[in-house]
């Protein structure tokens, strides 16, 4: 498998360099998409299927669409101004990267965290240690990550990107959408439920759901209009709202922020994850479709 890993690493590097150096925006985006694929593979090789799943959902699928949208908005690339700096930057960056790789490699992590997680797993209400960490032990981090997403949504909303007016793709898209959308809903549900015991969870589920929704949108099957956008926005915000309410509610019940009531942990976690799934999906969709049209002064 050494050959596999080496080829993978070479491919990742090649993609990264292409993504950075191509003068054509589409080329960069495409290279980036491939990079996502390869990185997901590498996570698999690193025995981190949870991360691989997340990378697959966000990195490979949706970011490509979002980047393409951004690329279209930006227009052609202007000649680079800081080209003379590229060489020293590359040198320093590779020096730093190499050094860090070496340092990381030489670090021998004491086994502190994993045993702690393992010891506390039974009390967490879920059997997937990743989910236990993300939604119980360090749920506060997750809550804040959701807040990041919300803020991103707000900033995008502020910047007032134009509503996407897709070119009609014709009837050939309809069967695709009609098949993909239900499957993605099913898949999302599956991933969500599976999260408590196996790799999966709200992020992945949300991304998959968003993919299905986007297919509908692109096929022209999704409803449009201000009200829908508004609803989507509120849906996007609702995940954090639910999470926060759950946090405060749990504090009211147990006296500790995000301290779920005993034995009901799983219910709480899954409920929160469900809300998050919807909200992530709505957020990703909105980021792609855009908000109402707004003039920038």
């Amino acid at each position, binding site marked *: 498998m050494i050959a596999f890993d080496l080829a993978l690493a070479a491919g990742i590097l090649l993609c990264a360099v292409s993504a950075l150096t191509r003068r054509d925006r589409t080329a960069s985006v495409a290279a980036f998409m491939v990079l996502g694929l390869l990185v997901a593979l590498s996570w698999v090789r690193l025995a981190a299927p949870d991360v691989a799943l997340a990378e697959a959902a966000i990195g490979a699928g949706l970011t490509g669409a979002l980047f393409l949208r951004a690329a279209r908005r930006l227009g052609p690339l202007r000649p680079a101004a800081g080209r003379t700096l590229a060489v020293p930057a590359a040198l320093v960056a590779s020096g730093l990267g190499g050094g860090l790789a070496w340092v990381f490699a030489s670090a021998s992590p004491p086994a502190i965290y994993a045993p702690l997680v393992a010891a506390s797993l039974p009390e967490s209400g879920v059997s997937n240690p990743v989910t236990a960490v993300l939604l119980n032990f360090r749920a506060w981090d997750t809550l804040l990550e959701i807040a990041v997403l919300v803020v991103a949504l707000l900033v995008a909303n502020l910047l007032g990107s134009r509503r996407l007016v897709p070119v009609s*793709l014709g009837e050939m*898209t309809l069967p*695709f959408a009609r*098949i*993909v959308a239900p499957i993605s809903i099913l898949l999302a549900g599956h991933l969500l439920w599976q999260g408590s015991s196996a790799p999966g969870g709200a992020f992945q589920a949300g991304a998959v759901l968003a993919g299905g929704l986007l297919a509908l949108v692109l096929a022209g099957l999704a409803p449009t209009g201000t009200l829908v956008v508004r609803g989507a926005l509120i849906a996007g915000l609702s995940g954090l709202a639910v999470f926060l309410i759950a946090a405060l509610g749990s504090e009211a019940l147990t006296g500790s922020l995000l301290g779920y009531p005993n034995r009901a942990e799983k219910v709480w976690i899954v409920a929160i994850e469900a809300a998050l799934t919807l909200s992530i999906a709505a957020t990703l969709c909105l980021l792609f479709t855009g908000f109402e049209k707004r003039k920038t002064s």
Partner: protein
Amino acid sequence: MTTLPSVLGTGLIAAGVGFLAVAAIGFWRLPDLLSRLHVLTKADTAGLSLVALGAACLTGTPASILPLGLCVLLTAISGATVGHLVARSVTPRGGRS
């Protein structure tokens, strides 16, 4: 290891991977975009289907067959749709149907 499903599965997989390799070479060698689209829609889909089938043979549990089947279905339909749309968008009289 030498049961029928495993041999069959490995064989199917090898064939599928072969299709994929051919597709890759073709993708590199074919002269224009429309030709290259064939790779995506045909060779690749076939390769993946064979690989999935082979994998299903190897594992054999229904729990894994369902996702593999869905994989094939989705890839096929994606390849077809994207190939069609791209082709239509680059042909001069396409665009508006």
